[in-house]
């Protein structure tokens, strides 16, 4: 991969669920080390776009490239096989709104699962990696606990450590703080912020407009399956060019003041 080539490249992406077109002709590029926030009203397609980046949602048309791996969809292209898709997904880490930790495994085993099962690391090496990542998210002392015993904020930090254990080129966050009690949002955002500071390439679907403004390099506003506005974070949030973006953000500003 050359230095000038973006880390993520999405071209002419289309997705429909039944009669409902969720994404229409979406084009997006994310440079290495860039943090991009996807914002927009519910039903705008932002989560679907994020899930197309690791093929949890398989696009109907267009092209998705992450790092060296690229897939084209629709028309003459046959669907990638399960092994190819698994390899593709291993290069991205994903953090979910509902955490989705594995409840039958300890915190440590959750974080070791990717390295052991997918990367086939030796157990000792996987454990060393997992303990290091748990320390990084501030949960080293919770390693032997089961997820059910953790708070929402702790669960989400474990989920971030689990995704990082694959040493992915890209991290995807799907409303990572939306299911948290307000007082727990900060600890998760802090971990995300430190990841961004380390130069991790991140795409995050978020309702945290303040976080998007402070941490993201770019904000992409979607509505009705189309990218309406795409620009530097502060510019899009403080002085949006498009009326639709202004209307959406006005709703947030009202909430803040109210």
């Amino acid at each position, binding site marked *: 991969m050359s230095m000038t080539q973006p880390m993520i490249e999405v071209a002419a992406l289309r997705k429909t669920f039944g009669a409902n077109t969720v994404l229409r002709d979406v084009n997006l590029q994310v440079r290495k080390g860039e943090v991009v926030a996807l914002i927009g009203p519910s039903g705008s397609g932002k989560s679907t776009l994020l899930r197309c980046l690791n093929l949890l949602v398989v696009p109907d048309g267009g092209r998705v490239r992450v790092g060296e791996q690229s897939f084209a969809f629709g028309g003459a292209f046959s669907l990638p096989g399960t092994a190819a898709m698994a390899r593709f997904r291993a290069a*991205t880490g994903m953090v*979910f709104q509902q955490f*989705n930790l594995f409840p*039958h495994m300890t915190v440590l085993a959750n974080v070791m*699962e990717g390295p052991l099962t997918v990367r086939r690391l030796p157990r000792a090496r996987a454990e060393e990696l997992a303990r290091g990542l748990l320390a990084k998210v501030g949960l080293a002392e919770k390693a032997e606990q089961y997820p059910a015993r953790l708070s929402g904020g702790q669960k989400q930090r474990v*989920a971030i450590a689990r*995704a990082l254990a*694959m040493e992915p080129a890209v991290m995807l966050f799907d409303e990572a703080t939306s299911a948290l009690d307000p007082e727990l949002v900060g600890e998760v955002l802090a971990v995300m912020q430190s990841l961004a500071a380390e130069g991790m390439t991140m795409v995050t679907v978020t309702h945290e407009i303040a976080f998007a403004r402070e941490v993201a390099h770019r904000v992409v506003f979607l509505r009705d399956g189309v990218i309406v506005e795409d620009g530097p974070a502060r510019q899009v949030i403080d002085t949006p060019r498009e009326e639709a973006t202004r209307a959406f953000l006005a709703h947030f500003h009202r909430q803040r003041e109210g």
Partner: protein
Amino acid sequence: MYQWDFAVVWSYRWLFVNGLWVTLAFTAAIVALGLAVGLLSGLMRLSRLAPLRWTSQGYVEVFRCTPVLVQLVWFYYAMPILTGVEMSATTAGVLSLALYGGAFYSEIVRGGIASIETGQSEAALALGMTPAQSMRRIILPQALKRMVPPLMNQSIIQLKNTSLVSVLAVPDLLYQGQAAAHDSYRPLEIYTIVAVIYFAVLFPLTLLVGRLERRLARSD
């Protein structure tokens, strides 16, 4: 008023022991075979490949919607004529009861797997697991825990169903009871004892399932 005389039962004690042994061995065989068939069929039902789903569904409906006694008789009398393969009463009994139980196990397996939140397999796939790895490492361990009580309940029913093989003269507990009843002319005592033996085996198992259900409910 009928004059009970259980003393006569004692002289047939070895018949009962042999019969109970056959019943338990039969149960073990049909439960083991049924679980294997049920797990396979349950997984097929959730496959992405439509022919596998149809095969599983066809199997389940045929065996759920016909009486097990009819299946037993059909396997013993009809199947050899159609296929030319003679089979013993024991083989026919194991085959039909295992397939009958397997149909119910299949539904339990399907339901157990379907009850695991989709977020679990999404998280597994997002890590880069193949669907097979996700099933083996993430979904099945959680689903099996939820399946254990209903699988045990179905296995208890399977133990009771083994009494039907007496129709094919397989010497199980009920068949030996019939023999003892004819021999002793004391059917009331003999069949009462047969019922008591079934109860003595099944009641503790039922209690065990109940305890297991409560323990699993607490740990969820």
